[in-house]
């Protein structure tokens, strides 16, 4: 099936990049045989969204060029259990345990507050990440879906929850569906306000309430 995804934020068209479109759990996918890779380089995750099929493992690598740059991947949801401890590029990469629960897992670095990414556990291989989209609309295409009734799910980190749409797939026929996803700036921005793993702030607040490094203007 195919169609066009339109992403809106606060009612206004926004960029659609990194929107994930996948088929719901009506189809069981095979367990991945290799870990999905998420690199940490330049004090950033190299992917904003990393889709991974259920029961797969994500491998977080520290690929900083300076050997003494620590990273510490963790998920704020303790049930997910992602917690790498601090490791340097010279240390072994961190592999998560197999991720079973479908849905988004936000990951942060316990050292670098600005490092934010999402590992998304999908049920099967019928998914597509609009990673190269430009603008508020982007086309999507999922091929080889078995005929029958399915739930097509659309997600973007600015949306409150994944949007599920019922679709019927017929053999030899291409189903066309355009979907609009509504999100808010507030939801997306709230990701930036996270705390450390142990629920403390990364940096003490400045006397004026700001955080050092956030705005050079405050220092000049």
């Amino acid at each position, binding site marked *: 099936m195919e169609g066009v995804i339109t992403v809106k934020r606060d009612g206004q068209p926004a960029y659609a990049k990194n929107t994930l479109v996948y088929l719901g759990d009506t189809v069981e996918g095979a367990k991945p045989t290799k870990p999905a890779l998420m690199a940490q380089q330049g004090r950033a995750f190299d992917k904003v969204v990393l889709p991974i099929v259920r029961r797969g493992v994500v491998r977080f690598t520290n690929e900083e060029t300076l050997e*003494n740059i620590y990273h510490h991947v963790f998920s704020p949801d303790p049930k997910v259990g992602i917690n790498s401890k*601090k490791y340097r590029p010279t240390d072994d990469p961190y592999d998560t345990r197999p991720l079973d629960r479908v849905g988004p897992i936000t990951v942060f670095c316990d050292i670098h507050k600005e490092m934010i990414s999402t590992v998304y556990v999908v049920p099967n291989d019928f998914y597509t990440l609009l990673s190269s989209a430009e603008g508020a609309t982007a086309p999507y295409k999922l091929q080889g879906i078995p005929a029958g009734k399915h739930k097509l799910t659309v997600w973007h980190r600015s949306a409150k929850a994944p949007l599920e749409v019922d679709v019927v797939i017929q053999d030899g026929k291409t189903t066309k569906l355009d979907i609009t996803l509504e999100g808010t700036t507030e939801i997306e921005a709230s990701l930036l306000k996270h705390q450390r793993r142990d629920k403390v702030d990364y940096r*003490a607040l400045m006397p004026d309430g700001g*955080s050092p490094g956030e705005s050079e203007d405050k220092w000049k």
Partner: protein
Amino acid sequence: MRFGPRLFLILSGLIVALVVLTATIASRILQRTYEPVSQRAISAASAVILSTIDDRDHRARLLLRPLTNDARIKGGLTARAGLADPEGLGGKTDEERTKNANDYFESFVDEYWVDDEQDVMMLVGADGTLAYGEAGDGARSLLENEVMNNLQVSTLLGAIATGNESARMLWSGPRLRSDAPVLPGLTKGLYLAAGSRVVFHTSGIGGDEVVGAALVASHRLELERVSATGADAVFIDRGKPIDSTFRSRDAGSEIEDAAAAWLATKPTGKAAVTLAGVPHYALPLAVPGLVEGPVKAGVFYSRAEEFERIKAAQTELAGIGLGVVLLAMGIAVALSRNLSRPINQISEAAGRVAKGDLQVTVPADRKDELGDLARRFNEMVQGLKERALAKDALGRYLSPEMATDVVGGKGLSMQGQRRELTILFCDVAGFTTISESLEPEALVELLNQYLDAMVKVLLAHGAYVDKFEGDAIMAFWNAPRDSADHATRACLSILEMCAEAKRISIEWKAAGKPGFGVRYGLNTGPAIVGNMGATDKINYTAIGDTVNLASRLEGANKQYGTELMISEETYAQAKDHVEARELDLLQVKGKLKPVRVFELLARKGQLTGLQQKVRSDFAAGLKAYRERRFGEAKAIFESMPADGPSRTFAARCDRFLAQPPPADWDGTYAMQTK
């Protein structure tokens, strides 16, 4: 010293003193004008530095507070200290823990914004070693060196360790080894270094533990704003200059070194110092609330302009002063000459007067005191001249000795007084005849020759020559000078005069000139004597009957054919010294009382035999005559026909024989003529 040079020196000295005084006052005024200017500049520069330091302090506090409260930093420093491992950094040995902690800081601390150009940030462990440093790129090793070797940071850490939660001090920037590369973007200069301790909060018995410190040196202090105040600033570290506003100038480093040397003496207050030959006001900068470190700051204000202005003013004043001095020299020379010239003239004139030159006068046209002096001097010389003339004139009538006394006013009184005098009148017999036979010039010459000779004799005998009247002379004795034997002197005088006159007469006759005889009359008695006449013409003279009688006696000689007739009184006083014979009892015209008159014959004892015989015969004749025995008397008188008086009496006897005198005749002869 002469008057002129002295006056000149005094004037010059006064003017030089005045000029020096003026220059001093001008300097003081300029100094007072410049002092507030320098004060303002120094205050402004100090204020700029202090406010900048305050600003740096604010920046440093802004950075320090989050640094020291960052859980990651606390955790890293705690792990580094080996107290606990809240960040899960691991590490079995101190070395590993330190490495891990340092790597950990390296992982995130650069998110603290640091100005690569200016700010320096350091995290220091509890052991004093550098955990993290940032001062531009790749500064860590340099900062490590700084922390390990720099007394300044140690001082700050020491202050933090010994109780202060935070401390600040002046910092001269990283002190690098001479072979170390320059810290990129970080220049030496004045920074404010601030530090706060980092504490690990433990809930255990030990309480909170200091696990390290965060240090921030915020923004180098730029000197442009200091320069704008007109003052200069110098920062030193352990005596060596770090930075200064002098650097951009000519010979700036020399001045900077001198300023640094002054600051190194740890001055406590404002001072006037000379830096490399340039005078400055200097003020050590005291920043309250800072930890005392090796870095000192000082503010300076150049007094070069002030001194230039003062020098210019002094030069100008010196020029004016020189001009005034030169002018004053001229004035002084002119003035002293103007003053000394008349004084010298008078002095010279006085010298000439002292030598007897009375023809001297000095110019007396000035209107001032010197003019008065000159006029007085001229008057004095005139007075002297008059007195000399008077003395000279007196000398013609008085002996020089007497004349001197008269002029000197010594013991002599020219005032009118009554006193006894012996008075002489003498006259040339038949002068009219002589005068008619001679030319006037020849007559005057002869007369003067005669009078000169007579006066000479008179003066020699102490006479006062009263006056001349043609050939006649009036003189007297016992005035103005006292003379007890005045009658004798007078008698001896006319005896000599008579002899002198006869000698002259003989000379004249021998020279073919007319001969002459002289009549003398002497009388002694009281007279009024003194200066008489009008104001302009005063004559010291004698008046009175005594004088008149003397004149009568002179004239009476004609009656008797005698030359030397003296009165009874004169003879009575001089008889011990002169020889005389009684002539007659004479009643002069205008007088009732007859006067006994004598003919003076010679000095005492010098009568010739003939004279003695004539005198005794005449006396016998006179006796007979008075006893009215005129015939007998006539016979006696006629026996001496050469004797003038005898001839007179013989003729008188003839008349009485023809017509006898009245019965009460007492022998007096009444003279009919004057």
